[in-house]
């Protein structure tokens, strides 16, 4: 197996980074779901909203879980076999932001049930990302475009 001679940049990243981030997100959202309705649950959701916002609106390089991966995990691993584009995982961060921000808003407006459903969907997506390298952009982007421009 050869390793890439490419160097990680903001546009081309180690594909293991987003999966590592997905694993942390899975744990955070799982605890948030278990503690839903308590201050701990709300605080965890608020934390994850900030994480997703940084990843989606600033860039993956600014996402704290990605920083943990680059600083503490990546140096202990072999060089990545291949780099991948940052745009698809960044799109997934945006989708995650929408669901978790919606859940937080629902809690603040008093609907724990709606918040629970939104967090459950985000948790499933984060788990699929970590466990199966699921490409959310592949599944939802074209469908979303089709729906948003239906005429």
């Amino acid at each position, binding site marked *: 197996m050869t390793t890439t001679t490419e160097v990680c940049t903001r546009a081309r990243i180690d*594909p293991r980074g987003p999966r590592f981030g997905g694993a942390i997100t899975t744990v955070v959202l*799982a605890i948030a*779901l*278990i*503690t*839903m309705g308590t201050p701990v649950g709300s605080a965890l959701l608020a934390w994850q909203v900030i994480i997703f916002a940084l990843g989606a609106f600033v860039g993956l390089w600014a996402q704290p879980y990605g920083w943990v991966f680059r600083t503490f995990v990546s140096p202990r691993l072999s060089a990545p076999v291949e780099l*991948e*584009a940052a*745009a*698809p*995982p*960044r*799109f*997934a961060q945006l989708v995650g932001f929408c669901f978790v921000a919606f859940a937080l808003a629902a809690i603040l407006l008093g609907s724990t049930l709606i918040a*629970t459903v939104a967090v*459950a969907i985000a*948790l*499933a997506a984060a*788990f*699929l990302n970590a*466990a*199966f390298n*699921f*490409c*959310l*952009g*592949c*599944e939802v*982007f*074209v*469908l979303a*475009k*089709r729906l948003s*421009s239906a005429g």
Partner: protein
Amino acid sequence: MTGIFMVLAIVILATAFGLWHRSNSGRMKTVEHRSAGTTEHGVAILDAQTIGGDLGARATLVQFSSAFCQPCRATRQILIEVSGMVDGVAHVDIDAEANLDLVRALDIRRTPTVLVLDEEGRIRRRASGLPRKVDVIAALGQLD
């Protein structure tokens, strides 16, 4: 306690979905043609003007890609490699976002989606997800 069971249920369901999705991803499926000149997905025949590229003398590999699609790049590499290897096979890459009318006419829902056209432009095979090179070559062999 309810929360813990809910998390367990989500992980089990997501695992089942992930395994199902992975086993289907990239699989070349035969496209059945109906007597009305359509397929289960809609349009049955594509021409050079519609796909924005010449049809191959023997077959054409049509790929639908999008900006937020991780395996589209690897799919492109495989299809370019196969079209370079097998005589008379063309490769056309279409940006789904910029061709939504065609995407609707063919009922494309995911990227990458790969269509295998015969020499007349009839859609004979369809795969969504990264296809294996051997499956693409096998699909071309089954066209005759």
